[in-house]
């Protein structure tokens, strides 16, 4: 079962075009949707999650039309929005149980079983009776995934789940995601390249509502192999290099700027070729369109 997005377009009343003729095929497995803030990831995710209408296009989940058969889609959907809150004075166990009912798990013993399992799974068992108001950001995020996993969904959408988590929490969270079933479509949107690198079998890079790239991470790496160059420069040279070269990223090493440049050929003196990583793929897709100019 694939998720098939065809010719999807959406323009908000304020003129922002959040999706431009998006076409994606998302197979079973973990799918990374990579893009900077404001790229249109959340719009796309919300549209897939039945929460928003596109202006044009279709989304099919297997034979289900996501845009018209919302109820059917929701039955097999697990959704963790980018930002969400909780009832501060309700415990995790109670709220999860409540959401389970709304998910259609009306048999109380089954519900009890799955709520317990998910709380253990997300490592919230110890704190299940604690009010959610006292949860840390990571715990809250794990609660979020717990609710998304209710009733073994076929399609799981997690929108920027690692934003704002400290490294330990992030790790724990990604571990949790990685365990999700092989029969499930998991769409993970993120602006953190590491997330995709560690988890995803397929990916897409999206910016300003447009899909810039799709494929597996290894294909993506293959594409730019030998085109990424690195140079350590002086602080005041940055602007100069930006004008002359196709700088896709700048980092610092021991306080000194290092730039990565996208180029088919050796871009100049002092540049060394580097083995590209996903981050380079990402930045070259987003900032690297000028590549052909050189």
């Amino acid at each position, binding site marked *: 079962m694939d998720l098939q997005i065809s010719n999807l377009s959406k323009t908000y009343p304020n003129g922002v075009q959040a999706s431009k003729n998006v076409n994606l095929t998302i197979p079973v497995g973990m799918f990374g949707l990579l893009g900077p803030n404001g790229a249109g990831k959340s719009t796309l995710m919300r549209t897939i999650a039945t929460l928003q209408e596109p202006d044009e296009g279709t989304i099919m989940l297997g034979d289900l039309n996501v845009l018209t058969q919302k109820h059917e889609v929701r039955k097999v959907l697990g959704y963790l929005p980018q930002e*969400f*809150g909780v*009832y501060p*004075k309700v415990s995790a166990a109670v709220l999860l149980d409540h959401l389970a009912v709304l998910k*259609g798990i009306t048999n109380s013993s089954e519900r009890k*079983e799955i709520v317990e399992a998910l709380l253990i*799974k997300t490592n919230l068992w110890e704190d299940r009776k604690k009010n959610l108001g006292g949860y*840390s950001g990571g715990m809250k995020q794990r609660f979020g995934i717990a609710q998304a996993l209710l009733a073994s969904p076929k399609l799981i959408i997690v929108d920027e789940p690692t934003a704002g988590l400290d490294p330990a929490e992030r790790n724990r969270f990604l571990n949790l995601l990685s365990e999700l079933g092989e029969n499930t479509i998991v769409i993970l949107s993120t602006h953190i390249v590491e997330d995709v690198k560690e988890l995803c079998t397929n990916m897409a890079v999206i910016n300003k509502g447009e899909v810039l790239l799709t494929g597996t991470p290894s294909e993506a790496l293959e594409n730019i192999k030998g085109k990424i160059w690195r140079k350590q420069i002086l602080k005041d040279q940055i602007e100069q290099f930006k004008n002359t070269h196709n700088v896709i990223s700048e980092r610092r090493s021991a306080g000194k700027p290092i730039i990565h440049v996208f180029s088919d050929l050796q871009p100049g003196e002092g540049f060394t070729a580097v083995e590209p990583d996903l981050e380079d793929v990402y930045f070259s897709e987003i900032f690297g369109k000028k590549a052909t100019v050189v």
Partner: protein
Amino acid sequence: MTWEIFKFELKYRWKRPATYIYFAIMFLLPFLAAAWDQLTIGGAAGQIKENAPHNISFMMLIVTAIPGLLLAAGIMGTPIIRDYEHKTSSLFFTTPITKYQYLTGRFLGSFVTALFVFSGIVFGMALGHLSPWVDPDKLLPFSLWNYLHPFFAIALPNLFIMSGIFFMGGALSKKMLVVFTQGVGVLVLYIISSQFISDLDNQTTAALMDPFALGTHDFVTQYWTVAEKNSQVVPLEGLLLSNRLLWMAVSLLALIATYFFFDFSASKKSKKQKAEAKTNDDPIRIASSTIIPEVTQHDGLATNIKQMFGMSWFYFKWIFKQVPFIAILTAGILIMLSNAQNWGKVYGIFRLPTTYSMLELIQTFNLFFIIIIVMYTGELIWKERDVKMNLIYDALPYPNFVTLAGKFFAMIYMFIALLSILMLTAIGVQVMSGYTDFQIGLYIKTLFSDTLSFLLLFTFLGFLFQSLTNHKFVGHAVFVLFFISTLIFGQLGIEHRMFQFGSTGLGSFSDMNGYGHYLPTFSWFNVYWFGFAGVLFAIALLFSTRGAETGFMMRLRKSRLRLTKPLLTFTLFSIMVFAGSGCYIFYNTNIKNEYTNSKETEKSQADYERTLKKYQDIVQPKITDVYLEVDIYPRERDFEARGTYQLKNKSDETISQIHLQYSSDKNVTNTVEFGTDATIKEAFDKFKYYIYELKKPLAPGDSLQMDFVTKFDTKGFVESGSNTEILNNGTFFNNFYFPTFGYNDGIELGDDDTRKEQDLPEKERQRERTDPIGLAQNLITDDSDRLNLEVILSTTPGQIAIAPGYLQKEWEEEGRKYFHYKMDEPILGFYSIVSAEYEIAKDTWTRENGEKVNLEIYYHKGHDLNLDRMMKGMKNSLSYFSKNFSPYQYRQLRIMEFPRYRSFAQSFPNTVPFSEDMGFILDIGDDDIDFPFYVTAHEVGHQWWAHQVTEANVKGNAMLSETMAQYSALMVMKETYPTEMMQKFLKFEMNSYLRGRSREQKKEQPLELVERQGYIHYRKGAVVMYALQDYISEDSVNVALQRCIKDWAYRDDQYITSADLLGYFRDVTPDTLQYLIKDMFETITLFENRAKEATYSESGDGYLVDLDISSIKYRADSLGNETPIQVNDWIDIGVYGEDEDGKDKILYLQKHKINEENMNFKIKVKEKPTKAGIDPINKLIDRNPDDNRMKVSLKEDF
């Protein structure tokens, strides 16, 4: 630095649209109230002008209290909270400003903003009054001072008081809900104090306790006359000043507390967060080995219903955990309990805490119900979005209706819980008063039908507003606007219950008649409104927000997709229910019955006057004999009366036309037939007025028979004002349902303001005392002088039917019960017909000559608590009046209870219908006034004062019947009960008189010219007559009355006036006291008596009291303008000691000639004096009765 923060705050506020919206509210409301008749705040009416200073300050108080409270909370509660919410607090706290600078800057900035907002009141009201279209007759010359004084004396302090309290709440808790809860608290204090202020003993405390000074304002001006209200600003002194100072001190304390307890460091919270974040660092191994079990996912209607109830339960628990909810609930219960302290009190006496009375007590919670509905429909609709879980919820597989219906049921659970709590509270009140007849069934029936349906209907409305506006506060605002619009709708003539959302018209409950005939109306209107609510629900559902896009157009687009088949079916079904029941209701209220709104009714009254006034004084024959057969059908609420009048031309003119006026009651139809040929010459069907031309005119002295059939036919149900006289149980009506003769000026509009709207000239309330036409009519009717009465009544078996007269025969025939009554002497043309299921209490009273008079009380089963008091009232009255006035003219006297829809007792010949509410259900304590005894004595008094001595239909006539009945009752009470009880009673009478004249709308009359002004002929009458008999002796008054009766009893050629009565009083009054007649009856005379200083010293075997008094005597005109006049009066000087129980005991009480404003008295008493004063028992009318006596202190030797 403070200055910088202040400026920052001001700039911020200046940019906020809210500031201007708030200003607009505070401007518009007073503006509209001042400039537009359809919206009234305050009490301008009649002679009190719209811009009277008293009215201005009263309006200002209301505006600062009701919308003001909300706005003050919004402005003053927010500044600190805002910094926390925007997370700018830490920015501030790390800059080098001090806590003091930060808090004062924020406070002052907000306060100045609030001041700007509140200043709208002054501009709004002043401009409103200056608007060119306001009727200049309703205005005084403009004076800015009249606006500025109350603004600075009352409104500004109110703002400061609220500001301090709300600023503290916001700063210390950082939660807006706490601020609103404080607001509710302030409101509670106000409501409690306003309850206590009606209790004569707790007024001072209550006046101080009121945070808005609304009750205080009312209290300090309670005796103000029209003239004072129009001319004086309420001075900032006395209780009002104390109240202001007290509450400003409270506010100041709150601000100081804010400074001390406000935590001015940013670090604390983050520490706490870190500590929590640490708690769960080590992932537990088993987590990854746990397998998530497969579960069955259900779908379909059964599942959805389960989900809906799951949701309801979840939200129900959530509501009950809310601090504001608990606060409102507590506040409501507190108010209920506080109200219970004075609930249903009359003359300081408790009514029995019957279940229906407790249900009425529960209605005091209605305001809180409204607050809860407005708040929590908003909270629930917004809950997921408020906690930002909406996207999670919205992506779950349940249909839309689950959320909305789930929340609706959560509200239902909440209401059921609330109503149960209120019911238990009410039962608690009953238990505490030792009352155990709980009537749980009635509680449940009423609360869970009437109250619950009202709550549910408004919940639907709240959901609709929230769903359509899609903005919580706008939703609230629309709700509030809705309430305001309903008020205006009514003013515009759209008053039919079918347009008053949620109005179902369940009338009051009576033990006798239950909910009676109100039930069908109630049921049908409920069906109607719930059908309507179903449509609202469907609309709310269609437009409810689900998903990430919330624009109205987007929802409109989606709504088409949402109109699923089940929803469409539901909507159509609701529309059918709504329309179907609507048709049925309309058929009943407007087709079977006639419906007119109040403006149309007023117009029709005015038309009546314009068309027929010309016939007012035409000569008509008088009824001399009445024979009646009346069949009463209580179950159908019908009656049919077949009657015969014998008419006699008592004038010296020939009468050729008979003018018939039928009852204006729309259920009544009539047919008449004259004993001679007569044709209808002119018919005014609209007014039910018919002019018959007699073929053979009626010569002076000639008689004519008239037969008539009057049918009263209750058809279906009416919109409102259902007849409360012809009932399933407890029918009581009088002869004015039968045909009357000539123009009836009682139909005319009485209120001058309304008359002006209808272009009619102002109207005198009664005929002048010298008007020959008025003098030739008695107080009851000009259709007859005295007449002979014979009545045969029939009713259903099980009920007893009663009319004036002696029972001749009683029988059953064809399943109906018959009673034949006959009077053996002529009576006034005023007779009652009563039918109900009765128990009977019987007794007799023996005349001096040994003849027995039968006494009977017909009462509703179980209402036997005060029968002895009423029986004693009858006996003692008959004895006293027979001995001191004249013999009792009848051989029987009966009291009949009737349902509490009407609250009075009325004296017909030997027959006294007596409301359920007036004495049957009073719980009289040992020290209480014996109210049933008093009412009985008053009504028995009317057997003399009305039925023996009958007054003319002119000004001052109520001084005959009512004031003399009051005097009669007072004397019987005086004879039966201790003096303290009399004084207690007279204190109530004095208070009622003084408050009554303060509310006079036309003109206050002296007693001898009273024109149907109850506060004068009952209240002032009682006070004055008690004083008169104190001055000239009871015997002298009684001698005067005996002479009066001797000359005037049973006359039907001429009727007595107050001038005649005063003649008898003059005759028995010594020359030195003749001035009393003028002071008491002919003028409005008041005293300002005061004890100024009182000391005592021991002297010989006793004590010498040295008393300084002052006495000012005033004459007041009809508007209450007072002129001091020379005092030259005999006034009591009294000295009190204490008896063993510590109660006051009179040591000295003598009348002294007071002829200077300031005088000194030295009085020797034997026992130790405690108090002394002038007119200490308050026999004279005095607006400050409490300063008449004071504590006596030991004289200090120098």
